[in-house]
């Protein structure tokens, strides 16, 4: 009887042991499984989290470029000339819009557009319809709070020019996408643009933005660097007004004026205007900016004519043979010349602007009265090589170093192409084509005691963090000796004191300068447009201690064509204002040196 009980007991113990083992095995398996899950959880959530986030992002998130706020442009006194204002672009996904009429009614007052205009846009079945490109932030916030289905707001900015057309040809403009299209906006695009940011927005697999999903800022945009220009806004305004008024009065097609700080080469004002009241079928007018200048029919040119347009400068080019002659010792200011009315070279007649008999003139008087034949005689003494090297010495034939987009180096005659007639035509500014700024630079060499200063337009760079970095000072090199420059100054004073440039005089100051009136050639034809001239005056003040240099060029004035009558008065008006504005001390009363010479009767300077 006891044996079976003992056997059952043994079996029960064995059975319990086996069960325990099984349970332990099961526990171990479950534990291992759970541990595996934990490990996998850590693996997914921690170790490979970024990988899976990327996978998820690639399916749900898409990167949207957030445009950086473009840097501002200021004048030399901090006056704002251009700035970007943050705005929003309103985009509609019309596939998500169930009730376009109702939605258009809500949108209309916020966008300032009639609901009837919006409804067709909201039913285009396009998926991406821009409803407003530059919505102010205040209205955009209201629209955002409305959370209309299918309406997305993207960051954008609007470029604004508070002074309207002021310095438009200089500043340039921007494309619809905010990139610079012309002028300084184009030249300094990389600096002004800043660095765009990146945002990730949640989208459905078919690319539709998910409603109420906040975008994730991946990289914040870095605002662009601002520019502090050398331009003086009030002087720029006065320059444009004086030039524009004269352009209308003289019936000119285009006008250019530049004022330069003699010592530093900083450009204080630079105007390029187009008179749309006038036209000439033989002369192509440059495109204009639409903003009005305040003078009827006068608009800012889209091209900065002072650096992008080349022209035959006429008599202002006579400074080349005179500077070379003085440098070479071929002439002195009092060297006498017998000047006839005309000369014939290779079958071509060259004559002075006005008929006269044989005149006995000094070199100074030849410049004073802008005698073409007298200038030819000086050039003949110099010879071809000296003449050509003198042109390059004063900076012609190469960019000025301003770095303005589209700047032309000009077109110069080479020794290989030098014809016999060029000995008379070249020194009076009829062969080479140069820019107005190159002419101004050449005269600035004389004003600056023979030192050539590279012109500049930017004084400093304004970082987004408020840091101000000054621009490098302009490069300089000696082009003429100080003694030659001094002699030329005295000769140029005579031009304004009693020669062809008397209308450039400014009371209280001694002015030195030169007039020029040159025919305008046809584009692509070796002939001149009948009756069309470029009128130029270039000079500096005060003559003994120059502070400011300036050039004025008016294209095709009519009926009065002379630089001394059309361009010189603009010079006088602007220079008078500028000298007064900068507090330049008045000159001492200058008694013009008495010069020996004949009785001159010609007072114009047509070449």
């Amino acid at each position, binding site marked *: 009887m006891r044996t079976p009980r003992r056997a059952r007991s043994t079996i029960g113990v064995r059975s319990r042991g086996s069960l325990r083992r099984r349970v332990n095995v099961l526990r171990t398996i479950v534990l291992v499984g759970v541990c595996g899950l934990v490990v996998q959880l850590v693996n997914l*959530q921690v170790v490979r989290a970024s990988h899976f986030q990327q996978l998820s992002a690639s399916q749900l998130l898409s990167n949207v470029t957030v445009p950086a706020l473009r840097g501002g442009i200021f004048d030399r006194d901090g006056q704002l000339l251009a700035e970007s204002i943050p705005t929003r672009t309103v985009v509609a996904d019309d596939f998500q819009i169930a009730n376009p009429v109702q939605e258009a009614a809500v949108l209309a007052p916020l966008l300032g557009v009639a609901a009837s205009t919006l409804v067709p846009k909201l039913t285009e079945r396009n998926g991406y319809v821009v409803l407003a490109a530059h919505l102010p932030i205040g209205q955009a916030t209201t629209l955002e709070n409305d959370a209309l289905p299918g309406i997305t707001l993207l960051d954008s900015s609007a470029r604004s020019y508070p002074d309207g057309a002021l310095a438009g040809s200089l500043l340039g403009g921007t494309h619809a996408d905010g990139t610079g299209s012309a002028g300084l906006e184009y030249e300094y695009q990389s600096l002004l643009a800043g660095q765009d940011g990146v945002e990730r927005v949640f989208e459905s697999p078919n690319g539709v933005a998910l409603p109420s999903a906040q975008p994730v800022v991946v990289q914040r945009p870095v605002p662009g660097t601002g520019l502090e220009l050398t331009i003086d806004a009030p002087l720029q305004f006065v320059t444009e007004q004086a030039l524009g008024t004269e352009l209308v009065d003289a019936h000119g097609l285009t006008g250019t004026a530049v004022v330069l700080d003699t010592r530093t080469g900083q450009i204080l004002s630079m105007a390029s205007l187009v008179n749309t009241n006038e036209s000439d079928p033989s002369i192509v007018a440059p495109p204009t900016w639409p903003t009005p200048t305040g003078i009827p029919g006068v608009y800012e040119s889209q091209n900065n004519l002072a650096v992008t347009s080349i022209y035959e400068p006429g008599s202002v080019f006579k400074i080349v043979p005179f500077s070379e002659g003085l440098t070479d010792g071929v002439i002195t200011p009092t060297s006498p010349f017998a000047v006839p009315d005309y000369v014939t070279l290779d079958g071509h007649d060259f004559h002075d602007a006005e008929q006269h008999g044989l005149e006995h003139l000094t070199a100074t008087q030849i410049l004073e009265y802008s005698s073409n034949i007298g200038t030819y005689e000086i050039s003949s003494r110099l010879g071809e090589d000296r003449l050509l090297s003198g042109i390059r010495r004063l900076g012609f034939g190469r960019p000025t170093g301003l770095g303005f987009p589209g700047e032309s180096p000009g077109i110069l005659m080479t020794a290989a192409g030098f014809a016999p007639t060029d000995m008379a035509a070249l020194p009076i500014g009829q062969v080479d084509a140069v820019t107005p700024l190159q002419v101004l630079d050449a005269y600035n060499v004389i004003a600056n005691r023979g030192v050539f200063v590279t012109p500049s337009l930017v004084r400093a760079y304004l970082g987004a963090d408020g840091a101000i970095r000054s621009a490098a000072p302009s490069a300089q090199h000696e082009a003429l000796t100080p003694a030659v420059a001094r002699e030329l100054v005295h000769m140029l004073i005579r031009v304004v004191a009693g020669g062809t440039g008397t209308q450039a005089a400014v*009371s209280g100051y001694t002015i030195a300068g030169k007039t020029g009136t040159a025919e305008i050639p046809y584009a692509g034809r070796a002939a001149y447009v009948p009756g069309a001239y470029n009128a130029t005056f270039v000079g500096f003040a005060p003559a003994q201690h120059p502070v400011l240099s300036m050039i004025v060029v008016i294209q095709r004035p009519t009926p009065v064509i002379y630089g001394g009558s059309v361009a010189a008065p603009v010079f006088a008006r602007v220079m008078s204002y500028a000298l007064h504005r900068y507090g330049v001390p008045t000159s*001492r009363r200058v008694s013009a040196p008495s010069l020996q010479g004949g009785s001159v009767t010609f007072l114009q300077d047509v070449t």
Partner: protein
Amino acid sequence: MTARATAAARSAPREAEPRTPLRPVPSVRHPRAPSPSLWGRARRRLSPVSVAVVLVAASLVAVVVGNMQLAAGQLRLQQLQADLVAVQSAYASTLQKVATLEGPATIAAQARDHHRVPPSEILQIPAVSLARPLPAPTFSSAPCCSLTPGR
């Protein structure tokens, strides 16, 4: 030895040996007996599986809470960003208004409205050397009669 002899030998009583006196055996606690303490009872109840499940659940909760914190921070950042853009926009607009008012064109227009025009000619007096004495001023005699009209 035969089987019978073996059986006889087994059945034969062995010589009696001196036996130790009987005494009560001290109770021996089972080494795996449960502890009477609270932790012991809890530990007995918490199997490794339960612990693992709790750990997993806690991890998940921690991850969810962390994500919520991140999302909340992101939302706050987004709101701040929007506020910043709004303030920037207002600043830029104000700057533009100031620049327009300060602009030379506006000032010239305002001056014209007040009937102020640029002078047709500015007479700048030439500088005079201070080293030389100025000429003595000349005085005219007093007028003989009053210039006031109507008297």
